[in-house]
């Protein structure tokens, strides 16, 4: 699913450097990325998603060399193939839950919002246990419910790859387990691949593989 080859990246300003000789994630694999703050975990997710482009090497996702696409192609590729789940949920407080889930369809021409998508959004929300809260304002939801809505938003376009950036970071222990269960089950149901950045070492044994960024420069932790 993901293949990184001789990746090098640095911002125009600052000391930060990310190098990654080889890194692969197989289809349907669930991989956790751990490491200290500032080590480049989120930068890696942004590189895979094509939000930023590598200064060296290349990134291939689902057989598409993302780093070779132009801006518009990268955006279209991202919105149709990659689902993002963020630590702070990043729901829009001025939209209700259903509109938040449907939001990716409203901001790009690459996805078509039709009745089938709406039906799917409702059933996805029901699967996530927030089916009765679709008309509620996003702000009225609990943290756990917000993250469920965010997962629905990420899964609705049926992405091949889910990138989760500290998806359980803002949740209490009970909700962490529940949300991770839901995320794993949804990823499995949709036959997607999961690459999750986390600081939570208690959850690591649930992933197929763990990549430690601290040891990364040249190797992988298993």
């Amino acid at each position: 699913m993901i293949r990184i080859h001789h990746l090098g990246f640095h911002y125009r300003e600052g000391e930060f450097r990310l190098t990654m000789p080889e890194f692969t994630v197989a289809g349907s694999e669930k991989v956790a990325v751990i490491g200290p703050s500032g080590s480049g975990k989120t930068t890696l997710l942004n590189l895979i998603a094509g939000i930023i482009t590598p200064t060296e090497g290349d990134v291939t996702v689902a057989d598409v060399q993302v780093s070779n696409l132009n801006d518009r192609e990268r955006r279209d590729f991202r919105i149709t193939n990659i689902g993002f789940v963020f630590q702070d949920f990043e729901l829009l407080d001025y939209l209700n839950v259903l509109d938040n889930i449907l939001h990716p369809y409203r901001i790009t021409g690459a996805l078509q919002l039709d009745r089938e998508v709406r039906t799917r959004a409702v059933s996805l929300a029901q699967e996530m246990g927030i089916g009765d809260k679709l008309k509620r304002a996003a702000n009225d939801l609990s943290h756990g419910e917000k993250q469920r809505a965010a997962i629905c938003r990420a899964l609705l376009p049926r992405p091949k790859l889910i990138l989760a950036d500290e998806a359980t970071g803002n949740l209490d222990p009970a909700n962490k387990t529940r949300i991770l269960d839901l995320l794993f089950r949804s990823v499995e149901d949709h036959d997607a691949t999961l690459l999750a950045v986390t600081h939570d070492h208690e959850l690591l044994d649930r992933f197929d593989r763990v990549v430690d960024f601290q040891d990364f420069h040249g190797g992988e932790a298993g």
Partner: protein
Amino acid sequence: MIDSIYIAWKYVGFNKVRTATLVACITLISFLPVSLQLLLEESERQLLSRAVVTPLVIGAKGSSLDLVMNTLYFGDEVPELIDMGASDRIWDTGLAVPIPVYVRFQARGQPIVGTSLDYFDFRGLKIREGRMIALLGECVVGKKVAGRLDLKPGDSLVSSPETLFDLAGVYPLKMKVVGVLEKSHTSDDLAVFVDLKTAWVIQGLGHGHEDVTKTKDTTVILKRTDNNVAASAKLFHYAEITEENLGSFHFHGDLSVYPITAVIAVPHDTKSGTILRGRYLSKEEALQIVKPEEVIDGLLQNIFRIKNVLDAVISVVALATILALILVFALSLRLRQREIQTIFKIGCSRMTIARLLTAEIALILLMGGALCIALVFLVDQFSNDLVRALFIR
């Protein structure tokens, strides 16, 4: 695009206070100059159109503006009174047709205009319902008065006392409404027209009372001689003129010294008008003759001078408001950086983000514009009354 508008609509709807403030700012900065322009154009139209068709006005020396405003637009400011002889004097010159006007009293807030029948011909006023005044105590009302006071021929209208505390002053007279005038879109729509003699009855100069020679109440009679009977204040005075008591109404003394506020003079030709004006130039002359067009023109020039100052003030305020709006939008954009980053990460293009923000601004501008149009429409509907309230009363 529809999705952008939908999201923008949700955003402006969610941030109600911010949206309301921005819409109010936009509405105000667009409404103020437009409505001001509208009101000034309407005032110019109303004031000038009537002034142009009124050739000359004769009244007591003093403020020519008060004289014209009272005679033409029935303004509240009553000029010093002149006597009816002023009208007769114009008639005697043979230079113009005099139309005496007595605008002093009110009925339920509407001016009562005492005049002669020539006034209706001069103004081209037509009766829409009922008939023209024919008897003492009758009145015809303007279209707006009829609407506001819900009057129709056959109804009654009571004149208002000048002051509630003057017990010896003017007593209300119950007038019979005999006609409603066609709408003229002028001050005539807002007036109650009576014959001059009825106006004098309202003032108490003419009156009707029970026949003192026939009264059986001896306490009313102060002194009785062979050819005169003196009665006390207990004598019953009529507050309404009816067919039965019409004959008892009478005026004491010479009518030529009875008061009026002005005389509209309609010269037979330009030369007659010039000669007539010349007759009032003497310093000893107690009356003045004015050309309403000149007086109103002077007033409008002053109004437009003030408008220029107001325009400058509004421009500065508008500029400050626009800068403040830009600042608000810029700050809002800064506060929403995280949201923008999120939707960008999801896959939204910068162009779409710009379109979303543009849609929000467009919606706010549209709402402000729509509100402004609605307010301007309202001002337009009531411009006649507003102009009257602002410039005449």
